């Protein structure tokens, strides 16, 4: 089903970039949690009011509620969680297939008795599992830190749901990246689609948040399906989550199929 030696080699290949991105996330998370102070929330809001509303919205700081979860969700899950792990997933998606085809190392992988589908499945598994571990660590550390700094203040089920949504969003984004990696012969094109589309989605998301006039843009970005303020306010997000899962399953399945069937320039 999968190739263990390849999985091992891929883990080793991407270990460093995983650690670096995780370290940056772990740098921001404690700072943001520590910044929470119910008493100063009001004065913070005053400061933010001095800034143009559009700028604040674009940064995802819309929902400045008073609970710890409100605070984390707007400061960490508004932009940082969309941006930082995305750098990691863009790199590993490109490395998974396209980079091997581009460099020619795919010829070595296929010269062993492993089917193309086995190679592709192994790489897909790595992307899915390592991304899950990254979001999982963020979730765990978020809960632990919150409970150390503000015991009992964090709405844990809400926080878990917030992270589940982020994870599902990443499944579909990496699905797009993986599909592009399977489809193209070179890193250049793989990145143009695999990095271009998620980054464009993010930029469109930021612009559509600015105000009424631009809000129609939300129909052109996948990130609309992940709305932190809605998730924590208890609105049903099952439909959005299911959509994200469907996109992910489709992209990964088609990616593996395309890679299995197409001509390789090795």
């Amino acid at each position: 089903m999968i190739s263990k030696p390849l999985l091992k080699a891929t883990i080793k290949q991407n270990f460093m970039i995983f650690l670096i991105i995780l370290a940056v996330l772990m740098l921001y998370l404690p700072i943001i949690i520590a910044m929470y102070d119910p008493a100063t929330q009001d004065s913070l809001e005053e400061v933010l009011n001095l800034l143009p509303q559009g700028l604040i919205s674009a940064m995802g700081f819309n929902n400045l509620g008073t609970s710890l979860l409100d605070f984390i969700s707007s400061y960490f899950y508004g932009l940082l969680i969309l941006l930082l792990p995305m750098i990691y997933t863009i790199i590993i998606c490109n490395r998974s297939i396209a980079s091997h085809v581009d460099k020619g190392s795919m010829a070595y992988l296929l010269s062993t008795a492993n089917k193309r589908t086995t190679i592709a499945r192994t790489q897909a598994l790595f992307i899915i599992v390592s991304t899950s571990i990254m979001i999982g660590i963020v979730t765990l550390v978020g809960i632990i830190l919150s409970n150390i700094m503000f015991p009992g203040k964090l709405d844990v089920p809400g926080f878990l749901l917030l992270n589940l949504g982020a994870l599902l969003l990443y499944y579909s984004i990496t699905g797009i990246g993986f599909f592009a990696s399977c489809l193209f012969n070179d890193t250049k094109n793989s990145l143009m689609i695999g990095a271009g589309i998620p980054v464009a989605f993010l930029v469109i998301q930021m612009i559509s948040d600015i105000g009424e006039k631009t809000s129609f843009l939300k129909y052109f970005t996948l990130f609309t399906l992940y709305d932190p303020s809605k998730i924590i306010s208890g609105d049903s997000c099952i439909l959005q989550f299911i959509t994200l899962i469907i996109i992910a399953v489709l992209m990964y399945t088609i990616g593996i199929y395309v890679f299995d069937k197409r001509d390789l320039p090795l």
Partner: protein
Amino acid sequence: MSIIKITGLTKDYGNQKGIFDLTFNIEEGEIFGYLGPNGAGKTTTIRHLLGFLKPDKGGSQILGMDCRLKSAEIMKNLGYLPGEIAFFDGMKGMEFLNFMGEMKGLKDTSLRDRLVDMFQLDTKGRIRKIFILTFEDASSATDFINNSPFDIIEANNKTVKLGILGNVTELIKALDKYKVLDLDTEKSSLEDIFMHYYGDLNISQKSD
């Protein structure tokens, strides 16, 4: 028994490039040199044998199995030395050999160690930094470690000039193996290489 069987193999890249209705067999025990000018379609043929390409018409078989559909199965009995060498960034020589051994499902490392010794390989250095000759040697070693019944070797001018094929031909003798050589090079560089030209090629399209 025909080890390799190519029947009416056609891959049209347009502009009269590609291979057209190629038919020949390679028998067991044969050392086969596959020659032609640049663009004649030698590499395209090899890519079909390795299962990288889907033919427009016709097909190829190795050991009676369809090359495109059963490539993983075929690879159990086939060694392949790519013309270009590229691998995971930062892998060391021995890591690379171990990795390829594991990917091929090999438990016995005695042949590998013999080859490392024979090539006098520097297996401690990072592949990227090792001198190109060692790099190519490491690559040849990965091809030979599973001691498959026969191998496909792509060679180019660089490999010939660096004397790699000298080593390879020594190995062919030492291991008593059957080889298919794809020699992408000028005839003058080929004088030292022993090979047997099999005269039933049917390449209907030739460039240059």
